[in-house]
C-alpha cells in the first residue's frame, strides 16, 4: 500500500477542502469553548478565593470532578444527558413544550468548556494569588474600595500573570476538540476519518490531521506570544 497525496486535493475530486472545512470547525469550537470556559473559570476562581466555605467547597468539587475524569467521558455524559436535561428544563422551567433542539456544535462547545473551566480556574486563582501582597495593602492604605482595588490593581496584573497558564489552557482546548468527533461533529478528526474510510488511506489522512493541528498550535503560539509581550509592556524583569 502506498501513500497517494492526490486524495488531499481540493474540490470534488479530493478531500482537501473537507479537511480545511474541518479545521475551520475545529477553530470555531475551540474559540467558543475557550471563551465560555474562561468566563466560567473566572467565576470558579472567585468562588475558590471567596470567604464562604460553601462556595469554596462547591468550586473544589467541580474542579476535582472535571479534572479527575477523562474528557471523553465528560463529552459522553453531556451528550447523552444534556439533551434530556435541556428538554426537561425547557418543559418545566421555561414552559416550552415539545422538543428542544441542541445542535451538536453547541453540545461540543459546552462539553469542552466544562473541562476548560476547571483548568482555567486553577490558572486564574494562581495568578490572582501571585499579585504582590504589598500592592494590595498599598491600595487598601490609599483608601480604595475593594471593587476599585480589584478593578485597577488585581485584575490587570492577574491577567498578565495568568497568560502563560491560559496559553496552555488554549492548547489543551484545541486538542480536546478532536474528541467531539465521537459525537459526530465534523471537525478535523472526523473529516480525516471519513476521508480515510472512503479512500482506505488512514495514514495519509491522520497524518494530514496531525499536521493541521501542529500548524494551528504554531500559529496560536505566535499569537499568544504577542499578547504576552503587549501585556508585559512597562513591566520590569522579575516584577
Amino acid at each position, binding site marked *: 500500500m502506498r501513500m497517494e497525496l492526490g486524495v488531499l486535493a481540493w474540490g470534488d475530486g479530493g478531500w482537501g477542502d473537507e479537511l480545511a472545512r474541518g479545521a475551520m470547525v475545529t477553530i470555531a469550537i475551540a474559540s467558543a469553548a475557550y471563551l465560555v470556559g474562561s*468566563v466560567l473559570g473566572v467565576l470558579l476562581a472567585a468562588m475558590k478565593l471567596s470567604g464562604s466555605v460553601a462556595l469554596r467547597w462547591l468550586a473544589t468539587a467541580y474542579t476535582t470532578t472535571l479534572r479527575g475524569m477523562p474528557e471523553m467521558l465528560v463529552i459522553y455524559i453531556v451528550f447523552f444527558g444534556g439533551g*434530556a436535561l435541556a428538554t426537561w428544563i425547557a418543559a418545566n422551567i421555561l414552559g416550552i413544550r415539545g422538543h428542544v433542539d441542541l445542535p451538536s456544535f453547541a453540545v461540543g462547545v459546552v462539553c469542552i468548556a466544562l473541562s476548560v473551566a476547571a483548568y482555567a480556574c486553577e490558572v486564574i486563582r494562581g495568578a490572582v494569588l501571585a499579585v504582590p501582597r504589598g500592592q494590595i495593602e498599598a491600595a487598601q492604605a490609599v483608601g480604595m474600595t475593594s471593587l476599585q482595588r480589584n*478593578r485597577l490593581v488585581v485584575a490587570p496584573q492577574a491577567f498578565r500573570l495568568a497568560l502563560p497558564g491560559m496559553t496552555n489552557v488554549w492548547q489543551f482546548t484545541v486538542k480536546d476538540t478532536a474528541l467531539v468527533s465521537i459525537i459526530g461533529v465534523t471537525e478535523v478528526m472526523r473529516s480525516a476519518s471519513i476521508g480515510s474510510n472512503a479512500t482506505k488511506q488512514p495514514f495519509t489522512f491522520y497524518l494530514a490531521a496531525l499536521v493541521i493541528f501542529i500548524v494551528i498550535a504554531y500559529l496560536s503560539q505566535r499569537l499568544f506570544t504577542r499578547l504576552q509581550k503587549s501585556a508585559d509592556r512597562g513591566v520590569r524583569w522579575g516584577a
Partner: protein
Amino acid sequence: MRSRLKRLILAVPFVVAGLAPAQAEVVRIATEGAYAPYNFKDSSGKLVGFEIDLAAELCKRAALTCEVQEQAWDGIVPGLLANKFDAIMAAMNITDKREAVIAFSRPYVKTPIRFVTTKTGVGAAHTASLPAITLEEVDPAEAAEIKGLAKLLSGKTIGVQASTSHEWFVKEYMKDSTIKSYDTMDNMILDLVAGRIDVGYTSTTFLAPIHKKTPGLVEFGPPMTGGLLGRGVAVGTRKESTELREKFSTAIGAMIADGSLSALATKWFGFDISAK
C-alpha cells in the same frame, strides 16, 4: 473585568439561540452516514444513499416535511429518546432489545448477515451446508451449521460493529472466539484487510459495494436473518410517536404495492432486498 463581562454578555444569545424550539412540522430523521449503500457521504460531504432516497420518497407520500441529519451510530437511540430527532433510518433492524425502548414501522428491507474473510483467511474454504438460516425457527440442521461455524472460529478473532445485532449474535453463539467491536464497519474492514481480525460479521448489503472497492474478500457461511439479528430494517421512532409511525408504514406499504421499493432497492444494492 470589563472585557470579561462583555464576553459573558456575548455568550448569552449563543445559548438562547441553541435552545430555540424547532418547528413542530419538520420531521427530523437521523442516519449514520457511514454505512454504504444505505447511508453514506459522497466526496462533496453530502449525505446520500438508499435510505436518503427512501426518506425523501416516504415523506413525499406521507405529506411530511423531512430533514435528514447525521448522527454517530453509538448515540442514535439515546439521541432519539432525548428528542434530538424524530425518526431513525440507519439500517436498523427490529429486535426485541430495541423494541423495549423504541418502536418501529413496518420493515422496508430484509438484510442477511454473513461472515466475511480474506481470500487466504479463516473460513475462506468453508462450504455452508445450507443456503440460508432464519434464527426464529432453528431446526437441527441449522443448529448444526451454527455449531460448526462456532467450532471453525473457536480461538479466532471476529470483528463486528459495536452496539449492533451482529455483535449480540456473535456474543451469544460464538462464545469461544475473541470479539472486537468497532465504531464503524469501515474501520472493521480496514482491520480485516490489515489482518488484525480473522473474520468480520456484517450485513451482505454493506459488503456488496465493498467487494468492488476492496477485492480479495470472501463471504462464507449461510446468510442469516431473524431472531437476535432482527426482523428487518425499519424506521425507528419514539414509542409515543404512533401517528408518525403509521404514516411511514402506510407509505412503505404503498411503495411495496406499486413496486417502487423493489426498484429503489435494486438500484442501490444490485439485488432486490426489499421487504414484502
